[in-house]
Structures are given as structure tokens and as C-alpha cells.
């Protein structure tokens, strides 16, 4: 039984929920079992936001993640809060343009991506989240980059067609980035 539990955490406004939704839709389109659980309430209006995504080849039990296989940390408080929870052998993706700290663990694989800076440099300021998602899909053994265009097509509403290209650009930047 293969189950991948992904915890995405950061500030409200960083697209935390959207990146989770992207991963959930990708799972859906690949016929895996998925669950997506957002934090809701005041944190949606600023403050910390997080999102639990579970991808599995069997029905998902609890949608609440207590020990993630993958942590995406988009700010320092999130990294500090969840770094200890990641399962040994798991992966941590760190937005290193917002987080100076290094992960002090030997038993996990850590990817440092200056995603916010990269997004700014490319003029796609709000898409740091998708750069990290691109990097995750390329580097996680259970996930794959292929098929992202279909997911973008599905998730970006026709009214915002211009965003499709920008999302693809962000995903590709993340895929091609050499973090280590």
C-alpha cells in the first residue's frame, strides 16, 4: 500500500490551498485516492495557513496528517512547527528566500529552493508555490511531473486563461531547478 501524505504550510495568500488543490487534482486525474483538507477560518485571511493532501492507492482513512511524508514550508514558523513531525526518510521542501534556517535533521531529504525570489525575478510574483510544487513532482519517488498541463488546464478558470501559461512556467522552473 503506497500512501503519500503531504503537508503544505505558510502564510495566507501564498497559495498554500491552491498548491494542495493542484496536487489533489493531479491525483484524481491519475485515478488515485485523494483527500484535501484545508485549515479554515481566520487563518484564511492572513496568518498561518496549511493544507493536508493525502494520495493513496487505497481509500484514505483519516484526512488529518500528523506525520507527513512531505513537508512544504513556505515560512519560518511553519518549518519550526512541523519539522519534527516529518517521518524519517521523508522530504522537506523549503522556500529558502523566505527561510534562512537550515533543517537540523539527518534522516530526511531537504530541498532548498529560493522560490519567492525566483518568482519575483521571472515576473510571476505570486507563483512561488507552484515553483515548489514543480520541484516536488520532479524529485519525489512516488510523484511525477508528467500530466501537469492537464491539471493546469482543469484548475485555471477560462476567464483567467493567461494564468495557465504562468503556472506552467512556474512548474517548469521548479522542475528544472537544481537544489542540491
Amino acid at each position: 500500500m503506497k500512501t503519500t501524505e503531504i503537508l503544505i504550510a505558510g502564510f495566507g495568500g501564498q497559495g498554500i490551498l491552491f498548491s494542495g488543490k493542484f496536487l489533489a487534482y493531479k491525483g484524481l486525474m491519475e485515478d488515485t485516492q485523494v483527500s484535501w483538507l484545508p485549515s479554515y477560518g481566520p487563518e484564511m485571511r492572513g496568518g498561518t495557513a496549511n493544507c493536508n493532501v493525502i494520495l493513496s492507492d487505497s481509500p484514505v482513512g483519516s484526512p488529518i496528517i500528523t506525520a507527513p511524508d512531505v513537508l512544504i514550508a513556505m515560512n519560518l514558523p511553519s518549518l519550526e512547527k512541523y519539522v519534527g513531525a516529518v517521518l524519517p526518510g521523508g522530504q522537506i521542501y523549503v522556500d529558502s528566500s523566505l527561510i534562512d534556517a537550515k533543517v537540523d535533521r539527518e534522516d530526511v531529504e531537504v530541498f532548498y529552493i529560493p522560490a519567492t525570489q525566483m518568482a519575483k525575478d521571472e515576473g510571476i510574483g505570486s507563483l512561488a508555490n507552484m515553483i515548489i510544487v514543480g520541484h516536488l513532482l520532479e524529485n519525489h519517488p512516488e510523484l511525477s511531473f508528467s500530466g501537469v498541463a492537464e491539471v493546469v488546464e482543469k484548475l485555471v478558470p477560462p476567464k483567467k486563461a493567461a494564468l495557465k501559461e504562468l503556472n506552467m512556467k512556474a512548474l517548469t522552473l521548479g522542475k528544472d531547478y537544481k537544489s542540491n
Partner: protein
Amino acid sequence: MAERILMKGNEAIAEAAIRAGCRHYFGYPITPQTEIAAYMAKKMPKIGGVFLQAESEIASINMVYGAAAAGFRVMTSSSSPGISLKAEGLSYIAGSDVPALVVNVQRGGPGLGGIQPSQSDYFQATKGGGHGDYRMIVLAPASVQEMASLTIKGFDLADKYRMTSMILADGTIGQMMEPITFEDTEITTYDKPWALTGTECRRPHNVVNSLYLKPEELERKNFERYEKYAEIEKNEAMWEDYMMDDAEIVVVAFGIASRVAKNAVATARKEGIKAGLIRPITLWPFPNAAFEAAVSARAFISVELSMGQMIEDVRLATKCDKPVTLCNRAGGMIPSPDEVLTAIRTAWKGEAK
């Protein structure tokens, strides 16, 4: 196979209601159920239905009462404090024997409480809430798919028995997204000869009313209603058994708690502990038969997002002849699989009291 789509639990309720033929929604916004109203606001005008945001919860439940009396499939939704406000209307609807669907996506209480998930309205839903002798059929979905299927079932049972069906969900199931399919669900419709549809001078007037000043008459109404309730207790209880065949430690949980409990039961089995899960799907009628069938059980654990409410029904269902312990979090917190596992291990060692 029908297409799988990703939906929030709250949206699944709204879509299922529309598919079940509901064209009248009255509500008032409150976290964490507002997506139901938002979905209805978007869809109802396009299909000739009514979406109405009332001035208050009390107004909206009375609009439900009125539309139900007129024979329409009608619903409202709210979260815990809002349901308390609707309690008067729920009692009137029960006293008038009209069908309605009411959704409670629970949050922590009492009072204004918080906005995080909870199951602490179990008593309110299953034991009353409003005044007088009455019951509601209470359905407890544990997945987004069930948010939809139990909504359809809820309308069906409400019409069949002329009473309120309540969907007792929680903030987690309401907010989470899971794949769901809307297969060609059988929608059952019922004749409503009692409804206020206009006599057109061809039949005597129908009266929908909950006022009976003659005690003999009111008593008769109550006895009749309880005969109906007995029928429901006999026929409509639903539950899910998980690893119950030889289970000695039986976890009892509904809604989101059952999802957490399932993880814990699976882990316990890997440790060689004979654990199982009874997941009540109807909270009223409570699935007593599930407990009668649990012949190998030596201890029960009620896992709840409350200070222990369902545990009373577990004790009644087991006639207090086995130990029943509580594993709970409250106020918007959710027990972790590890907390449930610890309770299972304790019971397995025979230390449960």
C-alpha cells in the same frame, strides 16, 4: 463508471440536495457550513429554484416550515449556534408532521464556541434540542461521498415519515475535498395529500398545525407519532462494521472520529490486537443491532469530539454489561490515531474500567 470529481463536503450536500429535487433553500451564513449556502446561491436561480438568505436563523427555519407545509422538498443548513436558534422551528415542524432536511456542520461549543470541528451537538440532535416529545432522523456522514448520499437518503426518509432528517456533520467533513461520483441515484418521490396546495374548491381544507388544546387529542397525536418512531427504529438503523468478525476491543465512532479510529484499528490489528470498529451512520435510530451482533466484544471505546455524549447510547446498547471507555477531544480538537491506539492497547490489556 460515472466521472469522479473533487468537491468539498459542504458542496456535495448542496449538489445532492438539488439532485434530490430540492428547489427551496433558506439559510443564514455561519462558518464552517457557508459553502452550502454559497453553492445554492449560485445554482438555484439557474434552475428555477429559490435561494433565500433570511434575516436570521429563526426566520429561515420558519420559511422551511412554510415551504414544507406546501409540499416542497426544502432544506436549511447551519452550524451549532445557528441550530440552537432553529430549535423552536424544529419542534414546530415535528409537531406538524411535515418533512424537512436540516444540516448541522458542527463546530465547538457551547455558546459561540469556536469554528473548528466538533461533535458536541450529539445530544441536541438525537435527544431533542427543541421542546416536546419528538425525534429527528439523524444521519452522520463520514466522507464527502456520504455527505451526498445521506442528503439524498435524508430527503427520502423525511418525506416517507413526514419528519425532519438532520445531517449531523462536522467542520472537517464539511471543509475537506474528496473524489465523489453522482451516479444515477434513484430519487424517490412521495404523494403529499396533506400538503397545502390549494383546494381549488375540490377537496376539504388541509390544515398544518402544531396546536392541540385538547389534551386527549394532543396525547393521541404523540402516541401516533411514537408508533411511527418505533417503526423507524425497527427499519432504518444503519451502520458500518470494520474488522468486527472476531473483534474483542470495539471502537465506536461516527463522522470524522470514525476516520481517525479506522487508522488506529488497522494499526492495532498489525500489532495482533483484535480490534474492530462500529460506525453508526444513523445516530437516531441508534444501531443497537450492531452491538447485539458484537458477540466477541469484551470492551468498548467511544471515540468522540465531545465530552462524551454518544457514550451514553453505547452503554444503553450494550446494557452496561461490558466496560465502555471514552477517548475524546473537545472544543475543536480532534483525537490523533495514536491517542485512539493508546486507548485500544489499554483496553486490550484489560485495564479499561
